[in-house]
């Protein structure tokens, strides 16, 4: 027997990672680093441009493999199995449909209108297929995830929800969020076992109220400052010559700051809401009816990471984006966990015995890449 290399393999870790275990809580961790991801990221961009966009499908695979592989639970990483070819085919199908749609709309406008209706049905189907694809190409401990949601649920969660939310100026956003989390959470499978979640609308509204308060308070402050300066602004409009040049310049700066602040308020409110809803929805979720999921993001910290990531990415022309992405992934993972009911070793070996609901032969040839 020729022993070329002897490689120690990773054993199934049973010690807890991250935080001290309360009960039997196992937290996720993120083992990637900004500098390592930087190389992957810049090569992805370069090859995507050089190949006129075609490489972007393979770039997505490398990026996801990096992030999934570094997302570690109980000492083992997740795996992303999609191939660049699958994703490319999925994109080409969507692209071909859009071309067909445009050609028909140009030459046979009526048929084009009919296609628009078809598109309305097509999008939810595409979303459901995309979620199924994403789930099926994800595995943990050599057992695949699966997604069994249908187009109807996707229509409610991803079309009716956002439309209702925007028609009511954001008042029904929690309802839409609940639909999305229920659609994804109740249709996700790991091996043959199901996830389920039913976040209560009341708790989501509590999170929503904080964001609404941030927006109202922020706008009041901006309005108040603007009111204080209204005399100067009016003078500037009526007779600019009366104002010294420096004052005009500072007025422009002030308006620019107001503009940025306006967007920052909505940005913070959105981040705070996202963290709050994630906490509610994940903590309401169970796996196999007894293992509870958990998310305990701190809203201010999450918003701070989101905003500072954005600013750093912007001022470095995107070059710090890999660092920002890794920083966010690390924070989110470290505040996500599972409270296992029973011995984790036994739980996972039982699931592995049952095998996956989807075998490799039933994998989709095409990958509509909607992340989840």
């Amino acid at each position, binding site marked *: *027997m*020729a*022993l*070329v*290399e*002897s*490689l*120690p*393999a*990773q*054993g199934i870790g049973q010690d807890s990672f991250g935080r001290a275990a309360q009960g039997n809580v196992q937290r996720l961790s993120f083992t*990637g680093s900004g500098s*390592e991801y*930087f*190389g*992957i*990221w*810049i*090569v*992805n*961009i*370069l*090859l*995507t*441009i*050089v190949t006129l*966009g075609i490489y*972007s499908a393979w*770039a*997505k695979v*490398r*990026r996801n*493999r*990096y992030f999934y*592989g*570094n997302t570690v639970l109980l000492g*083992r*990483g997740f795996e992303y199995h999609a191939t660049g070819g699958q994703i490319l085919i999925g994109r080409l199908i969507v692209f071909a449909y859009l071309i067909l749609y*445009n050609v028909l*709309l*140009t030459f046979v*406008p009526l048929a084009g209108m009919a296609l628009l209706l078809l598109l309305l049905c097509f999008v939810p189907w595409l979303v459901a297929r995309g979620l199924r694809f994403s789930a099926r190409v994800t595995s943990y401990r*050599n057992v695949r995830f699966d997604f069994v949601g249908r187009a109807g649920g996707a229509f409610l969660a991803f079309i009716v929800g956002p439309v209702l939310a925007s028609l009511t100026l954001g008042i029904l956003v929690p309802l839409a969020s609940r639909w999305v989390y229920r659609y994804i959470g109740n249709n996700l499978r790991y091996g043959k076992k199901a996830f389920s979640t039913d976040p209560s609308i009341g708790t989501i509204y509590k999170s929503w109220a904080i964001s609404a308060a941030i927006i109202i308070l922020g706008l009041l402050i901006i309005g108040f400052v603007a009111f204080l300066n209204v005399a100067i602004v009016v003078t500037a*409009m*009526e*007779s*600019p010559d009366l104002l010294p040049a420096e004052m005009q310049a500072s007025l*422009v700066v002030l308006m*620019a700051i107001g503009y940025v602040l306006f*967007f920052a308020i909505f*940005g913070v409110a*959105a981040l705070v809401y996202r963290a709050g809803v994630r906490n509610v929805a994940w903590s309401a979720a169970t796996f196999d009816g007894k293992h509870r999921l958990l998310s305990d993001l701190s809203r201010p910290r999450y918003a701070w990471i*989101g905003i500072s*990531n*954005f600013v750093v*990415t*912007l001022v470095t022309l*995107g070059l710090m*984006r890999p660092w*920002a992405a890794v920083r966010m992934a690390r924070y989110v993972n470290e505040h996500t966990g599972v409270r296992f009911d029973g011995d984790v070793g036994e739980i996972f070996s039982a699931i592995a015995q049952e095998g996956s609901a989807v075998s490799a032969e039933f994998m989709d040839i095409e990958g509509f890449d909607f992340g989840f």
Partner: protein
Amino acid sequence: MPCRLVEDGGRLVVCDDARAELAGGSLSSVEISARVGRIPRRITFPDGSLFETGENDAIDRFLAHKGRGREGIVHRLERFHPRLIAFVAATLLLGVLVYRVALPALVEVAVAVTPPILPQIMSASTLETMDRTVLGPSKLEEALRGRILNGFRRIAALSEGGEAAYTLNFREGGPVGPNAFALPDGTLILTDELVDLADGDTEMIVGVLAHEIGHVEHKHSLRQIYRAAGVAALIMLIAGDIGSGAEDVLVQGGGLLALSHSRAAEAEADRHSVELMIKAGLDPTAIARFFELLEAKLHDRSKTSIFSTHPGTPERRKAIMDLIAATRRD
């Protein structure tokens, strides 16, 4: 469970501490995942069993030994190395190239293949939204409206699309104030406030409308929308993940950007106004008079700045006068 991966003849074999074979297969039937960073390598055997190891370098050495070293080329490019500085420089350079060459080309293609029904749908919904939110019904007297419509028909008939391609709508501007704007399908909107500002100078209003017709004929709105959408789409495609915040800003910001015409587009529309007015036998300085009026009444003396989408008013007036002088010389 802990075990070892060994090569046994032409086969790869996983065995436990007692050297009992757990899984095995010929090298060609075993799937070894490509290397990405330091994430564990997966070695999948034909029977579906999986061997995972963090010893990436050892696997690479083994593959190189077997003449399969080329499989790792992307990973070798990705390693943290001074070479990445060259990659950054090349990416920035290519990015500028994409923005300067590929984006305008894509916009032209998109404009050329846009089905004519699309601008009609877009315009109808924009007008409806504006009617619901800011605009009110016009309170102008019928006679004044008739005079403006007469002048408008005269220039519309001389434009490329002909009279039928344009419709003029009178509205009360409300928060929009004195304004005139064009929707991509040839629907023009003129606010009462602008007519009041003109104070009976119908020719000046026609000059402004000729400017708006210029926007429609040069398809400025459509170009602007495609440009904004193209920037967002290209950045998302090329950079892959840019963070949800940056994505939101691109999409929302793109929408805002699409609402305003660029400075070059304004200058082009100014020129169009001058040409159309000369053709119609009307006073080509009408649009310049409008800028003069703006200056006098609204104290708009601002110089062109990078923040504004419209060129500075005095600058525009001068450019128009120069153009008229040049046209008259010919």
